[in-house]
């Protein structure tokens, strides 16, 4: 889709020895369309001020931009109220905040928290830390032979002792998608609250938190064409209301005396300090861009490229694809026998191809697979079949050099 690619200025500027950038590291972060860059620059250059308190005109414009961004996010994730949309610095920040404000005050010795074997460290380590500090147990839901979450094992792990089940929507290493609706339904039978790590979801499928039924969901702006340092935590209103503030400080209060503080209402209660206003405005522009192209369109394009990459890379002898049948996602991991993933990545980058090599912050998963790492390619709307062909040919060259 040439017109879409031309919206991303980096592909004009970041050339490697005359060759354009082939960006296949979209699971890590995405490139930025001009409209997002313009929205951020436009805020700083045109109506910059703090939000919430100022009565002068740039402040009211900034407040209104920040508020509109929240409304855009609400519609984007299908939440019923803006009160359920909390801005964070990213997915990791959201996980930590839910752990600190929701889980820890409710977690007792002997309780359990469930995570899956395919979790990113950011949806693993905070829960692990919380469990260890309270004498609770972190249990890991295993994967089946096809590297999908083993739902029958999951069902057998659900008990009244489990306080939270934290699971990713899409594995950032394997690209497999979890059946969230089913998982959430199972968990709710035991009154277990479900936290969904949706970091890889916003460009894959339309999110609807009400339909999904999750209790919490988080994603980062930068993986969805938005800027870094902004993310979203969705929580069911009743849960967010009953939770202590995610952080304390200015902005999140109604009234402060020496004896006590009355907190502000949702969502302000959970957003202490000056928020990332430019980040929220940039994220809103990113959502506009996604809506313009269409989430389904982006997801379909990337999934088709993944499928094409499975076909082309399968031609390479000694190349192992992981979860190659995973459908409707953008992420594909592979290894080549006898060549370390980092050596492959180093040669690819010399050809202008940006991939990720290593553990992808999923040590429990690579440990289970008994591999030192993989090469991961992940697609987006600006990638093409020609780029996959070029990747395939370059891998052939690398193989003949090493082996």
């Amino acid at each position, binding site marked *: 889709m040439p017109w879409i690619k031309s919206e991303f200025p980096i592909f004009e500027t970041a050339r490697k020895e005359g060759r354009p950038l082939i960006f296949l590291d979209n699971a890590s972060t995405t490139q930025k369309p001009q409209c997002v860059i313009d929205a951020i620059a436009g805020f700083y250059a045109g109506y910059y001020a703090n939000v919430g308190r100022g009565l002068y005109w740039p402040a009211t414009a900034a407040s209104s931009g920040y508020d509109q961004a929240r409304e855009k996010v609400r519609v984007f994730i299908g939440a019923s109220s803006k009160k359920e949309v909390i801005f964070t610095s990213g997915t990791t920040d959201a996980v930590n905040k839910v752990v600190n404000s929701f889980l820890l005050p409710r977690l007792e010795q002997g309780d359990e928290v469930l995570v899956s074997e395919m979790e990113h460290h950011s949806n693993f380590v905070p829960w692990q830390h919380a469990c260890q500090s309270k004498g609770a147990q972190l249990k890991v839901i295993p994967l089946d032979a096809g590297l999908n979450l083993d739902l029958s094992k999951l069902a057998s792990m659900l008990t009244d002792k489990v306080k939270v089940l934290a699971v990713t929507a899409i594995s950032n290493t394997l690209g497999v998608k979890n059946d969230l609706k089913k998982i959430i339904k199972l968990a709710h039978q035991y009154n277990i609250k479900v936290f969904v790590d949706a970091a890889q979801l916003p460009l894959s499928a339309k999110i609807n938190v009400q339909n999904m039924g999750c209790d919490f969901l988080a994603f980062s702006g930068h993986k969805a064409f938005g800027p870094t340092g902004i993310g979203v935590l969705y929580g069911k209103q009743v849960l967010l209301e009953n939770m202590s503030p995610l952080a304390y400080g200015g902005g999140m209060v109604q009234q402060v005396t020496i004896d006590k503080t009355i907190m502000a209402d949702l969502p302000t209660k959970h957003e202490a300090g000056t928020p990332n206003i430019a980040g929220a405005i940039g994220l809103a522009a990113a959502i506009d861009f996604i809506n313009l192209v269409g989430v389904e369109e982006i997801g379909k394009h990337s999934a088709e490229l993944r499928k094409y990459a499975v076909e082309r890379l399968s031609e390479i002898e000694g190349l192992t694809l992981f979860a190659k049948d995973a459908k409707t996602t953008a992420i594909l991991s592979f290894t080549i026998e006898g060549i370390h993933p980092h050596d492959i990545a180093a040669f690819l980058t*010399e050809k202008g191809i940006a991939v990720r090599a290593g553990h992808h912050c999923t040590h429990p998963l690579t440990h289970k697979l008994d591999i030192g790492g993989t090469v991961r390619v992940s697609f987006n709307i600006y990638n093409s079949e020609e780029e996959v062909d070029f990747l395939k040919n370059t891998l052939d060259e690398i193989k003949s050099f090493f082996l």
Partner: protein
Amino acid sequence: MNDRLKALYKTQILAHAKSPFNEGVLVNYTHKLQAYNPVCGDQFDLYLKFEDNIIQNASFKGYGCAISKASTSVLTKHLLGKTRSEAKALIELFLKVIDPENNESPESITSDDELLAFTSAREFPERLTCANLAWEKVREVL
């Protein structure tokens, strides 16, 4: 393939990466060290056997890219027969060879081909930790 990168991986490195020197577990070791790079996950167990202040044997076992594996292989080979202070001097010398901040020409530092093979690491600062991983670890115990 790009010549610049090919130079980094030239024959010496590929040869060591493919058939490393003394790869395996040493039974009668006096020192066992773990060289681990959390950024990429490369991990080697290093075994040294000191006798009368001399490194009588050295080996390694683990997982890493061609650069880190070859540099570990070259390290274990060059440590053999060296006293603590000789080993220390060797490591300082190698680190100078690959140091991108160092203006001395590598050839003026050493004439050893196996060490000079890593000179190109100067051009790839992101691969420096591959080339010096095991060397830095051994330096800690000397």
